[in-house]
């Protein structure tokens, strides 16, 4: 039995099926108090199902789940008092103003009038929404809306916050803005479980990344170590001629090698920068293989998946859950 003192969230052998579809196939996961854990995975991997179970919206078929030390099956009301929920399937009221939304949430958490006033002001200020506070939410930009949503989930000082794809469908600038807002939560000692499809997001925000695919956690590590397993950067080469491509596959050596014969591409992890790239190019030059284009890019979720499963994310099961 894991300690509920140290761990804000404990999930043991969690299983859940919808009709004949097994969405969670035995998930084990713990989040230490005050940490941010990112659940990284493609659509249909089971991320949202986990959040829905943790926030008492769904009953699990099997397994033990403790949130803030409370059993979700037998103490759902205590769990609800310990959590804040933001994201894909939680939203604010667009006809009310930002301020009215926060006041309403505060009242529904049965906070006292003075606490609501103080907390509302504090959150509006913290999330840069003070000026927009008296405008209806339907006039807000996507990023402002997400921030208000986040503020609404924090109104009752929950020790644990769930963020379900907090930046999905936001433009890059709003995304950065929301990220910085989430980072601020850490200073308050809040435990955060967030789901995302972007390695970059998990990397920026999380202390720990758990990679989920097809209802199972397939890797769990710090962002730094996880990335070093996939390679700091990836070199992608497009070979000019088809017969050269086949030779190139045998000639090139390196970590996390992958290739695609239809597109005549070879890609590999680069750990030591320029020297390593030079080495690869030399190997090819010696064998007389011509390279069409060369790109160096940051590893993506796809690369993480290739590394741990040998599959591209969309080659896995494609269920919407």
């Amino acid at each position, binding site marked *: 039995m894991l300690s509920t003192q140290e761990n804000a969230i404990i999930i043991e052998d969690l299983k859940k099926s*919808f009709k004949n579809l097994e969405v969670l196939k035995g998930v084990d996961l713990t989040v230490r108090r005050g940490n941010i854990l990112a659940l990284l995975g493609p659509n249909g991997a089971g991320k949202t199902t986990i959040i*829905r179970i943790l*926030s*008492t*919206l*769904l*009953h699990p078929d099997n397994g033990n789940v403790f949130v803030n030390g409370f059993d979700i099956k037998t103490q759902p*009301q205590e769990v*609800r*008092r310990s*959590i804040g*929920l933001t994201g*894909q*399937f*939680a*939203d*604010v*009221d*667009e*006809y*009310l103003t930002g301020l*009215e939304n926060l006041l*309403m*949430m505060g*009242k*529904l*958490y*049965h906070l006292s009038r003075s606490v609501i006033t103080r907390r509302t002001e504090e959150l509006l200020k913290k999330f840069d929404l003070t000026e927009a506070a008296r405008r*209806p939410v339907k006039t807000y930009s996507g990023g402002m809306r997400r921030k208000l949503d986040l503020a*609404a*989930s924090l109104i009752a000082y929950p020790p644990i916050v769930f963020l379900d794809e907090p930046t999905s469908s936001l433009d890059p600038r709003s995304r950065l803005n929301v990220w910085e807002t989430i980072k601020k939560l850490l200073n308050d000692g809040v435990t955060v479980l967030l789901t995302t499809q972007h390695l970059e997001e998990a990397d920026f925000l999380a202390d720990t990344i758990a990679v989920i695919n097809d209802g199972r956690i397939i890797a769990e590590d710090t962002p730094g170590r996880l990335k070093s397993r996939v390679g700091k950067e990836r070199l992608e080469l497009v070979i000019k001629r088809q017969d050269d491509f086949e030779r190139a596959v045998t000639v090139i050596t390196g970590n996390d090698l992958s290739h695609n014969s239809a597109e005549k591409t070879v890609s590999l992890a680069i750990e030591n920068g320029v020297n390593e790239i030079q080495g690869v190019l030399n190997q090819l030059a010696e064998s007389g293989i011509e390279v069409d284009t060369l790109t160096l890019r940051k590893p993506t979720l796809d690369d993480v998946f290739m590394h741990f499963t040998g599959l591209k994310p969309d080659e896995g099961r494609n269920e919407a859950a």
Partner: protein
Amino acid sequence: MNSQLVYKKAYWMAGDVWVLIVRSIKHIYKNYDQLLGLTIQPIMFMLLFRYVFGGAIVVDTGTYVNFLMAGILVQGLAFGSLTTSFSIATDLQRGIIDRLKTLPIASWAVMMGHVTGDLVRNGLQAFILISMGILVGFQPTASALEWIVIAVLIVLFTLAISWIAAIMGLLAKTIESVSWLGFLVIFPLSFASSAFVPTETMPAPLRVFAENQPFTHVIEAIRALTLNRPVGNHLWMALVWCFGIILVSIPIAGYLFRRHGGR
């Protein structure tokens, strides 16, 4: 559970319901497009029937506008009550109900909020419609007591349709499907009734339906009360129908609400 805890829980629950009622009432004036649409439509219908069709319709209530008022009122209230289905379907799609379910509150309070919001809006709408009616020649002769009975009928009828609308909102897969679902139910009930024309000229099967369905009873009761005519059994039948619908639809709505979200 000790009595103090029970008291505290009841206090919180009443508070939660109140907070969500206030939210729905705010929607009335913040979403004024909707209020405007809901008020203008019956006014247009009233003018259409009063001035375009009215002259060709023979009634036994003196002027046609005296006959028309109750029908326009009940049809307007019925369409107004459908707002509950929009509000609930919207809350479900947007995830507001999911968020409320993760709060330590009784989540059905949100349905109470929408139904009560409808009631306030319909009260407002009834007042506007009757005032407009008087402007175009409606001459009610109801006493104060009769007006009170009419108000009670308006409240009960609104509640009955709102709870049916709540069920439709919970069953609808999309916000769009709510609109034709409501239309499909309210349109035949309000036109195949004595709302706009006496039922005597309708073909036999339709006439049997029209004379025995709840809308006609509510319309006839209000018509008789406003014009100082004998109410017959319409008032009692209207009350029985409204109470019956409310008693049956609340538990169904409650069941559907709990079931929602795969619980």
